[in-house]
């Protein structure tokens, strides 16, 4: 069978709001589809979500598979797996992408296991390229390079799925870029009817309480982050002041979160948010690999640290060796003077 070259994106939505990562994946898929000369398909499931396909097409989809059913209102592993599997088996897309969110990390391995295909976790980059299997002496053309950190961020692995379709990957939030909505884009919508079995309902959701993200680290131009070198809340307030003056957001290393200086939503790094702002200021942050994994692609990095040997300086564009309790007020003062 000749491969079709279509890329599918699983659209995660809750209460009719599409997850950012799904829009980011549509944006990335357009780029990949251009290289593969395939189409971008979106799989949208839910209850009363018929208003969403327009937004999905504007974000980059050519074709939307729309499954609406009261049983799909809240995400549950088994009904969603059944739906996705049936459609995958029918169409065998070339690539299947999903956000590495709690939903994606629950659903993707289940689908991959049932479909008998390879799955790469938590990718931070996707590319198209060729792969040579030396043992088989065989060259595979135009595979999906699934690029991901592992070993606690200490290595970057490029993984391929040469023989199974779809090539599946879950992708970290915030690393791909959504396209600006294009009202001119046209696409088609196909309604699909899910077929469930009794065993798909072994699990029931009794209650679900999700907070909307109140921190918008991903699309802010400036992140001012504090770490274990920040001694108390009074010092941490300096970071808030600086972020306000710069029109940015406050971030933190895990040490600052663990010390209770700020909520976990602000954590940057491997187990926090990945950011790529125009300017990243790291104050009292040593630069552990797990932290750098979330910020080292920032456009410019300023590091403030009392220890001239701190590893953070190796990724910094501007090194300030000094005590943050002195340097931050200087920055604040200089900015205030500018504003006048």
């Amino acid at each position, binding site marked *: 069978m000749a491969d079709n070259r279509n890329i599918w994106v699983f659209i995660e939505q809750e209460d009719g709001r599409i997850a950012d990562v799904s829009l980011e994946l549509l944006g990335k898929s357009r780029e990949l589809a251009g290289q593969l000369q395939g189409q971008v398909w979106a799989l949208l499931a839910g209850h009363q979500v018929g208003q969403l396909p327009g937004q999905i097409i504007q974000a980059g989809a050519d074709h939307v598979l729309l499954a609406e059913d009261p049983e799909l209102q809240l995400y549950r592993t088994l009904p969603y797996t059944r739906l996705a599997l049936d459609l995958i088996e029918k169409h065998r897309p070339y690539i299947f992408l999903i956000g590495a969110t*709690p939903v994606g990390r629950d659903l993707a391995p289940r689908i991959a296991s049932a479909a008998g295909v390879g799955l790469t976790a938590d990718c931070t980059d996707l590319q198209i390229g060729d792969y040579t299997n030396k043992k088989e002496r065989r060259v595979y053309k135009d595979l999906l390079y699934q690029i991901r950190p592992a070993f*606690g961020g*200490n290595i970057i692995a490029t993984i391929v799925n040469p023989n199974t379709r779809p090539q599946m990957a879950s992708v970290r939030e915030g690393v791909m870029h959504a396209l600006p909505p294009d009202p001119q884009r046209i696409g088609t919508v196909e309604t699909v009817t899910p077929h469930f079995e009794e065993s798909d309902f072994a699990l029931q959701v009794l209650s679900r309480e999700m907070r909307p993200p109140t921190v918008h680290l991903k699309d802010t131009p400036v992140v001012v982050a504090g770490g274990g070198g920040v001694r108390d809340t009074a010092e941490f307030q300096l970071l808030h002041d600086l972020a306000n003056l710069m029109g940015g957001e406050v971030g933190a290393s895990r040490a600052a979160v663990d010390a209770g200086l700020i909520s976990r939503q602000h954590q940057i790094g491997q187990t926090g948010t990945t950011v790529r702002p125009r300017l990243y200021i790291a104050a009292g942050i040593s630069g552990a690999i797990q932290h750098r994994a979330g910020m080292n692609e920032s456009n410019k990095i300023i590091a403030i640290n009392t220890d001239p040997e701190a590893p953070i300086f190796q990724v910094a564009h501007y090194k300030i060796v000094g005590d943050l309790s002195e340097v931050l007020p200087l*920055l604040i003062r200089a900015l205030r003077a*500018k504003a006048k």
Partner: protein
Amino acid sequence: MPYRSIVLVKQVPDTRSIRGEVMTADGTMNRAALPAILNPEDLNALEMALQVRDQYGGTVTIITMGPPQAATVLREALARGADKVILLSDRKFAGADTQATSYTLKCAIARVGEFDLVFCGRQAIDGDTAQVGPQVAQKLGLPQITYAESIVSLEAGEIIVQRAFDLGTEVVKCKLPCLLTVVDSANRPRPASARRRIRNKLAAIPSEIPALLAQWPEFGDPAALQSYLQKNGLAIPVWTAADLAADEALLGLGGSPTQVHKVSYVVLEAAESKEIPATPEGIQALIDELVQEYILG
């Protein structure tokens, strides 16, 4: 009502202690410098299973797939309270991705027989995929509850579990048997008890017997030691591909649909950097530069 629990644990290099000396100058990793530990979230999974046993009775059986050295984490699990441990070890298992790993684990669970609950850690700190739990569940045809933080109730063939995410919680009710993947906020794993540690010090797989005998010559010969271990429940069984009646095409490297194309080690890139003096003038000049370059606007 007693519950039969199975806990899947993995031996991992302690990637949390990666520091300068572990990363060599050319950016490769000196793995031998990393201590091998029981994956942290698997301790949370074990603790949850032990609490079920404390409250309702039953058994806790541990399974790990790994090289012979992984027997160490099984002794650790015994010292923390597990009833029974099994090592899955065979060259044919090597090089497995999560599909082949979960297939192997599924075969082993099927061989253990009847069970009510399977516990996994949410994620291992080396492979970092969090895929094995859901894939084992799928292969066993079980419902799964990922991100499990606490068991709210357990009765009449049903479990109610609270799941925890960064941005919220969910409470679900599920029929048994089912599989849970446990997060690190679930509990504080109990430490190994000294009594249990001493009692299980001799627990060993067959290939460890010569070394054990060198340490304890009073047992006389390997056969005598082996039969002592058998009698005292200290012989750790090792199951191979043949024991699992597994389809060999689905094991190890050959059974893995994913292939590693390239691995690169993260090296600190020395960015082109400027030293800024921590003085009012230095900082003022920095702000001016950032504004001029449109980085601050």
